[in-house]
C-alpha cells in the first residue's frame, strides 16, 4: 500500500505539487493524468525518494520514504522520465549493474536477467552501448531496469513515450501481466492508455488532485456519455433540425462534415436515447449507415476538468 498524505513541493515561488493525498492498494494500476507541468513527475520523484517533499509525506508498504529511503527503494522499481541510463555502457553491462544493486547473485541473477530480457525483447541489442539505441529500445532498457527485481511497487513515468504502436501495445500487455498483486503507478498524457491499462485514474492539474475514479466512472462524467453517434446512409432535408425534434434529445451536433451525414445526439439528463431514436428512424424510413452508443470520452473529462481549473 502506498499512502500519500498532504504532499506538497515548492520550488522557490512555484508550487509544483499542492497538498496531494491519496492511497493506492495492491492490485491497483493507478494512472496519473494531467497536462504537462501538472506535477505528475514531481509526485513520482517524491514517492521514489529522489526529492524531498516540502510538506507532507509518503509511505510505501508502511515505510516512510523520507526517513528510510533505502528500504523503500528496495521494494520499488522506478522508470524515471526519459528513461535515463548510462549511455556508455552496453545493455548487458547496465542490466548486470542493476541486478547487482538489486541484490541478485549467481544463478538467480542470470535467470532473472534472461527472463527480463525476454519480457521486454532486448535480445537483439544486448551488446550495444545504450547511447546508440533508438528511443524505443532505450525506453525498454529503462523498463527492464525497473522490473529487474520483480518489485512489489512499480512507478513508471511515461512508460510508452516514444514507442511505436506495436511497442506501446507490448508495454501495456507487460503492465497488465504484472499487475495482479502489485501496485503500479504510471503517468501519461495518452488517455487511451488509461482506459487500456489502469484500474483507477487521478487527474492532476497545477499540483492539485481534481478527479479520482475508475476510468469508466470518469468517462461517465463526459458529455458524450450515452450520446448516440449516428451516420445516415442518404441525404435528407433539414437532417439536424429533424433529429433535434426527437423526444428526450437535448441537442444535436454535427460530428464531422455535412457530407458525412454524421451527427452526435445528446440526451437530456439521465435519458436513454437508443430505443427512441431507433423507433424514430424506422418511422421516417431513414437509411442508417452506422449507429452506436458512446461510452463517454476521457479526453472530454480531462479537458473539462483541467480547463475549468486553470481558468
Amino acid at each position, binding site marked *: 500500500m502506498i499512502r500519500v498524505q498532504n504532499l506538497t513541493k515548492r520550488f522557490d515561488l512555484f508550487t509544483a505539487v499542492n497538498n496531494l493525498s491519496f492511497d493506492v492498494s495492491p492490485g491497483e494500476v493507478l494512472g496519473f493524468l494531467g497536462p504537462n507541468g501538472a506535477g505528475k513527475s514531481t509526485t513520482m520523484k517524491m514517492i521514489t525518494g529522489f526529492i524531498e517533499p516540502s510538506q507532507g509525506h509518503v509511505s510505501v508498504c508502511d515505510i516512510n520514504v523520507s526517513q528510510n529511503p533505502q528500504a523503500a527503494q528496495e521494494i520499488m522499481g522506478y522508470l524515471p522520465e526519459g528513461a535515463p*541510463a548510462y549511455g556508455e*555502457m552496453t545493455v548487458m553491462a547496465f542490466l548486470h549493474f542493476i541486478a547487482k*544493486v538489486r541484490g541478485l547473485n549467481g544463478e538467480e541473477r542470470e535467470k532473472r536477467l534472461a527472463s527480463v530480457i525476454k519480457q521486454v525483447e532486448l535480445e537483439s541489442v544486448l551488446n550495444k552501448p545504450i547511447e546508440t539505441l533508438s528511443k524505443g529500445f532505450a525506453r525498454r532498457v529503462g523498463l527492464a531496469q525497473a522490473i529487474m527485481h520483480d518489485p512489489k511497487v512499480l512507478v513508471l513515468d511515461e512508460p510508452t513515450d516514444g514507442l511505436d504502436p506495436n511497442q506501446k501495445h507490448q508495454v501495456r500487455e507487460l503492465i497488465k501481466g504484472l499487475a495482479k498483486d502489485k501496485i503500479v503507478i504510471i503517468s501519461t498524457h495518452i488517455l487511451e492508455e488509461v482506459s487500456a491499462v489502469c484500474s483507477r485514474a487521478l487527474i492532476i492539474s497545477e499540483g492539485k488532485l481534481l478527479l479520482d475514479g475508475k476510468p469508466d466512472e470518469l468517462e461517465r462524467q463526459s458529455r458524450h456519455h450515452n450520446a448516440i453517434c449516428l451516420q445516415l446512409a442518404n441525404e435528407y432535408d433539414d437532417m439536424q433540425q429533424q433529429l433535434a425534434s426527437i423526444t428526450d434529445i437535448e441537442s444535436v451536433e454535427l460530428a464531422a462534415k455535412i457530407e458525412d451525414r454524421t451527427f452526435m445526439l445528446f440526451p437530456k439528463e439521465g435519458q436513454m436515447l437508443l430505443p427512441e431514436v431507433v423507433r424514430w428512424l424506422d418511422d421516417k424510413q431513414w437509411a442508417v449507415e452506422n449507429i452506436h452508443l458512446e461510452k463517454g470520452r476521457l479526453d472530454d473529462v480531462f479537458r473539462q476538468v483541467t480547463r475549468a481549473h486553470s481558468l
Partner: protein
Amino acid sequence: MTFNMNMTTIVMQRQLHSYFATPIAYVFILMFLVLSGVFSFYLGHFYEKGQADLSAFFNFHPWLYLFFMPAIAMGLWAPERQMGTIELLMTLPIGQANAVIGKFLAAWLFAGLALVLTFPMWITVSYLGAPDNGVIAAGYIGSWLMAGSFLAIGSCMSVCSKNQIVAFIFTVVVCFIFMVSGVPMVLDSFAWAPQSMIDFIAGLSFLTRFDAIARGVLDLRDITYFLAMMALWLYLTQVMLQRNKAK
C-alpha cells in the same frame, strides 16, 4: 545511512567501467606519465642533482595534481546530473554515502593506477644508484594520499554543478588555495592575525605537508591530515547531494 561495502563496490566498479569505456582514460594516463617524466628530468634536474632519490619526481606532484585530479573528479557527478542518470542512481537502494564513497574510490584507484605506472622512475633510480626504498615508498603513499584529498575536493565541486568544465575550474581554484596557503607570500599577508591563526592556515597547506613526505618523512599527522581532508570533502559531497534532494 549505513555504509555497505557491497553497494560501494558495485558503484565503484560501474564508475571505473565508465572511466575506461572511452580512450580518454588511456590518453590521460599517458599524459600524466609523460609530464611527470618531463617535470622530473627537465625542471627537477633529476640527473644533475646526482642524488639516488625521487625527490625531483615527487616535488612536482602537487602541481601535476592541480590539473590532473580535477580532470578525474569532474566526471564523478556533473555528468550524472547533466544526463539525468542521477535520478536513477539516487532511486536505486544504494544510499547516498555508499554512492559518494564508491565513486570517490573509483577516482582514487584510477589516480593510484596512474601513479603505479610511474614505476620506471623507481627502476631508473635503482639502476643508477642505491636509493632508500623506504623513502620512495613513503613518497608514493604520501602522493596517493594527497591525490585523494584533491579528488575529494573535486567530488564535492562536481556534485555542485551540472557542467563538468565548471566543476573542473572550481576544483582547480579550491585546490590551489589549499596548496598555496603555506607559502610565505600568503602567510605574510596574514601578518596582522594572531600566530595561532597563521599556524592554522599554514597547516592547511598541501605543499607544506607534502614537502616533508617527498623527503621521505611520512608523519602520522600528515597522514591524518590528508585522510581528514578526504573525509571532510566527501561528507560535504553528501551534504550537497542531500541539499539538491531537498531543494
